[in-house]
């Protein structure tokens, strides 16, 4: 429905939008998230045909080119700017009528749709009121009604909840969610929770760049929100040894020893993928008395807060470094020296002995294996895995 490719917009020397590309499929509700000044409004204005793009490889809405076929694009878009520009001297009904005329709707069509949209946004009782006398929240709703009137396939809503009280925000949010049945919606906000509650997909912008694009889960991964595991257990008298042991698990990047809770110790284990099974298996093998084993996610909120504080470079850097960082501990850990080699690159060496076992040993082939199925292990020492993790005590 919306195709944007390498969109750039400059205001004089200032580049407001820099090489942004994304696309929206029909029926998607996508949130444009970013701090103030990130370029959200500029993108929306360009799509709505209010501003021209400085350059763009491709810029299409509903198959029409935004620059060449501007009128067609404007017909298929319901655009609600942040300021909700409505003629203050008109009545709500007159405003809707005017908008319907601009969209060349017939009289009966206008009357039918006006009643429908006013009912939908819940201001049917205000149709005779002057727009200028409406409260901010009501005006927002009327603006939404105006945008919805010609049944546009695409809706572009710029901060539809700004300036509303919490109750009104909730109403607008649920309204936007409902709209996803019939429209493709692009909605912007600088409030994460709002975007999360309205949209299935989020585009994150900062300083004119598109930093991330994806669902909540994908974003958490993309933006370095690595999943961690919290472990609380009685690990004996030497928690440091337990830390070392946990560190040696495949995929673990860092282990932090938390405070002591009675006889239990707290650990936060960070790494790739879901480490709970491995940690659990290790605990079972070591005979640690588990009290808590839970997955901890770095919330999108944290990630976004980092964005707002302006650490764009940090985040993109950490995104690039992330895979490399996960390899490090496995490389220099004595216990796991063979692990990196035992993967796909192992063919260069002499084929070691193989055997099929049911194993709960977390050191066997990392996080990818299924615990319930027999697995093939490479067994360079000839004996089984039982004595491998035996040395730390």
């Amino acid at each position, binding site marked *: 429905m919306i195709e944007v490719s390498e969109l750039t917009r400059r205001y004089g020397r200032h580049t407001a939008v820099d090489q942004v590309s994304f696309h929206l499929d029909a029926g998607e509700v996508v949130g444009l998230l970013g701090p103030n000044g990130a370029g959200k409004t500029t993108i929306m204005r360009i799509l709505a045909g209010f501003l021209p793009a400085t350059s763009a490889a491709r810029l299409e809405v509903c198959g029409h080119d935004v620059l060449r076929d501007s009128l067609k694009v404007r017909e298929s878009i319901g655009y609600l700017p942040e300021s909700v520009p409505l*003629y203050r001297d008109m009545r709500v009904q007159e405003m809707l009528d005017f908008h319907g005329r601009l969209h060349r709707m017939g009289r009966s069509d206008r009357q039918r749709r006006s009643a429908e949209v006013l009912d939908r946004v819940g201001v049917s009782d205000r149709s005779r009121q002057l727009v200028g006398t409406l409260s901010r929240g009501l005006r927002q709703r009327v603006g939404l009604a105006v945008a919805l009137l010609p049944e546009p396939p695409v809706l572009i809503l710029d901060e539809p909840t700004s300036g509303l009280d919490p109750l009104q925000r909730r109403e607008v949010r649920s309204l936007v969610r409902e709209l996803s049945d019939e429209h493709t919606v692009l909605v912007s906000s600088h409030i994460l929770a709002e975007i999360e509650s309205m949209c299935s997909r989020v585009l994150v912008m900062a300083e004119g760049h598109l930093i991330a694009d994806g669902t909540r889960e994908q974003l958490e991964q993309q933006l370095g929100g690595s999943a961690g595991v919290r472990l609380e257990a009685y690990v004996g008298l030497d928690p440091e040894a337990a830390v070392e042991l946990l560190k040696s698990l495949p995929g673990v990047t860092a282990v932090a020893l938390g405070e002591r809770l009675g006889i239990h110790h707290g650990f936060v284990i960070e790494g790739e993928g879901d480490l709970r099974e491995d940690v659990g298996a290790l605990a079972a093998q070591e005979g640690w008395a588990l009290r808590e084993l839970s997955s901890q996610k770095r919330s999108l909120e944290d990630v976004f807060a980092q964005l707002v504080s302006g650490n764009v470079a940090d985040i993109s850097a950490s995104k690039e470094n992330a895979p490399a960082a996960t390899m490090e501990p496995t490389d220099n850990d004595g216990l796991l020296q063979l692990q990196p080699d035992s993967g796909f690159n192992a063919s260069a060496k002499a084929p070691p002995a193989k055997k099929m076992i049911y194993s709960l040993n977390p050191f066997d082939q990392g996080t990818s294996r299924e615990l319930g199925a027999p697995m093939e292990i490479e067994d360079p020492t000839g004996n089984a895995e039982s004595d491998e993790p035996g040395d730390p005590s």
Partner: protein
Amino acid sequence: MRGTLVIYRRELAGLFLTPLGWLLLALALFANGLFLYLVLPYTGGDVGSSLRGALGGGTLFWALMVFLPPLLAMRMMAEESRSGTLEYLLTAPVSDSAVVVGKFLAATTFLALIWSVVPLYGLLFQLQGSPPDWGAVFATWLGAVLTSGLFVSLGLLAATSTNTPLLAAFLAFAACLGWILVPSFGGQLLNSLDAFVGTGDLGGLLVQTLRSSLQAMDVLRHFHFSWRMGVIDTAEVVFFCSWPCLFLFATVRMLEGRRWRV
């Protein structure tokens, strides 16, 4: 140009939705009544020439011509851009030219209504038993409307260049006033130059050309020698239609240019 009519209707209605429109109409009614009352004795009771005097004869007419179009232009362009409704209009499925032409027609229609006050007084005279020369009055009224169109388009052009309403009104006012004053003052200035240049040499030719171009642009002159005489001259119709076309074209371009500066 689809949508022109929709914009036109909305703008015209908008003028009457605020007290401003009604106030200006009432003011015009009063001022023209006063003017006729004062002028009628001087024309020896000639109803027709008094009516035509009210349309283009007095300072009052030209003062209104210089003041009203800038006010309307400010309201239609600068204020809309300030309140954000211009963003609404420019993202609606109508072209920029439809927006500009719709606004232009609405403002001109409003001024036409204001000038219609004068034929209204003519009707009163007729009812009193002294009918004016309706053809001449109508021709003068048409001239006043076309002149209003010229000044409205000039005002729109000036008002589009900024989105500060006050500055827009001032610019439009300066442009309209300049359009009236520059030809006459410029002509006088050129006349004083005559003493320094010969009639045959290059300087003289230059002065001559400048003078004739200034005269050609002199709205007062054009108005007085055709419309006010009650003559509908096609050359004058072309003059009073082509300038607005040029100004409206420039306004549309400027509006497009604004999108780059927003």
